[in-house]
């Protein structure tokens, strides 16, 4: 057994020397070589073989990549853990120190298997030929209209509503203008005189309010005020420029 191992190691060193992709590759090689069940690794044997391999590399003056040394220490660590006397009663739940290594090896094995399968598949699919693209007409740019039919109705109704509102707005103004045109200066004077009869001082801005009547109406009111003052039926007073105009009735 010892001799067998030695010769297999020798082969490993001479044949596969630079071919190991990493520590897992080497470990995997040893496992396969010794026909070991990956789930039941005899850690003592494998560790010894692994270390022997590293020594062999060292003897041949080969640089040993740090990853190989990391694996060596992992193996030695597992080995030492297994050597410790187990306190079975206490450590029922303690995991097998090999577990993590096994998990990694299983993953690695899967990768290896798929790698082999990919290699096989590539052989078949490498026999397939593709065609070069034809000279296609120059690329065009097409705009797709993204529209919503219901928006048509909504927009239409909105337009109509807006139009309706504007329309009403204008006709109000028109009505006021028309109504006011019937009111002559003479009529405005008579209106103002009636108001003054109560003997109370009037504020111009309250009698003639732009918010309530048209510009023309207010202007006519102003003329009426001047007319009343001229008739001697009222005195007008404006204390500040652009200020309030007071109309005070005057008895004659």
């Amino acid at each position, binding site marked *: 057994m010892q001799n067998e191992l030695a010769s297999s190691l020798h082969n490993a060193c001479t044949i596969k020397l630079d071919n190991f992709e990493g520590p897992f590759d080497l470990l995997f090689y040893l496992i396969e070589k010794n026909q070991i069940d990956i789930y039941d690794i005899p850690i003592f044997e494998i560790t010894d073989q692994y270390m022997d391999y590293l020594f062999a590399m060292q003897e041949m003056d080969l640089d040993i990549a740090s990853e190989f040394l990391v694996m060596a220490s992992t193996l030695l660590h597992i080995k030492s853990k297994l050597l410790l006397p187990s306190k079975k009663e206490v450590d029922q739940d303690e995991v097998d120190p090999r577990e993590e290594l096994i998990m990694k090896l299983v993953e690695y094995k899967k990768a290896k298997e798929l790698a082999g399968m990919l290699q096989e598949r590539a052989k078949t699919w490498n026999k397939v030929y593709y*065609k070069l693209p034809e000279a296609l007409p120059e690329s*065009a740019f097409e705009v797709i209209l993204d529209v919503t*039919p219901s928006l048509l109705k909504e*927009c239409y109704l909105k337009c109509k509503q807006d*139009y*309706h509102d504007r329309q009403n707005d204008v006709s109000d103004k028109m009505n006021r203008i028309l109504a006011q045109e019937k009111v002559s200066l003479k009529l405005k004077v008579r209106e103002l005189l009636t108001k003054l009869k109560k003997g109370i001082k009037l504020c111009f801005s309250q009698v003639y309010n732009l918010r309530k009547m048209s510009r023309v109406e207010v202007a006519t009111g102003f003329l009426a005020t001047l007319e009343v003052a001229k008739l001697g039926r009222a005195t007008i007073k404006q204390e500040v420029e652009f200020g309030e105009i007071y109309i005070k009735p005057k008895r004659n």
Partner: protein
Amino acid sequence: MDDLRDIESAIEAVLFAAGDSVSIDKLSEIINQDKKTTISILSGMEMKYKNSPRGIMLRQLGSNYQLCTKPEYEEHIAGLGVSRKKQGLSQAAYEVLSIIAYHQPVTRAYIEQIRGVNSDNVISTLAEKNLVYEIGRQDAPGRPKLYGTTEEFLRVFGFSSIGDLPQLGMNEIKMVMNDIPVD
């Protein structure tokens, strides 16, 4: 390789991979048949491509043969080079389009009267997009243009006719009817 179908398949594969035309000599060498046999196989294939539901056909070019697409699929192939982009319509465009759609035929003046804003550019844009068009002129002073919606309009909105426009409710119709402005 003696089966005719297998030979034909091999020729198809070779011509496909070549992309270019391949000489009859070369083909006969590849399929290991004499030139006469090769020519008759190729002629047979030419007919098969022509009469089968295929997108490609076999063409003889002097002493060469080449695979190419059938001319009737030119438009589909052109579609490969087309990149599409979605685009919406502006609010103004929807407004003008809706007035034209519901009231067609309609003048620019009418549209502007309803919207209260100049709508010249919007109408032009809609015409460019082929959604509206000038269907004639009104028999009135100045003979103003009359606009209507196009077939493209129906297609884009998914209508089969103008009758498919979203229906106005009774109250809505009343409002619209009361306010028909004077043109």
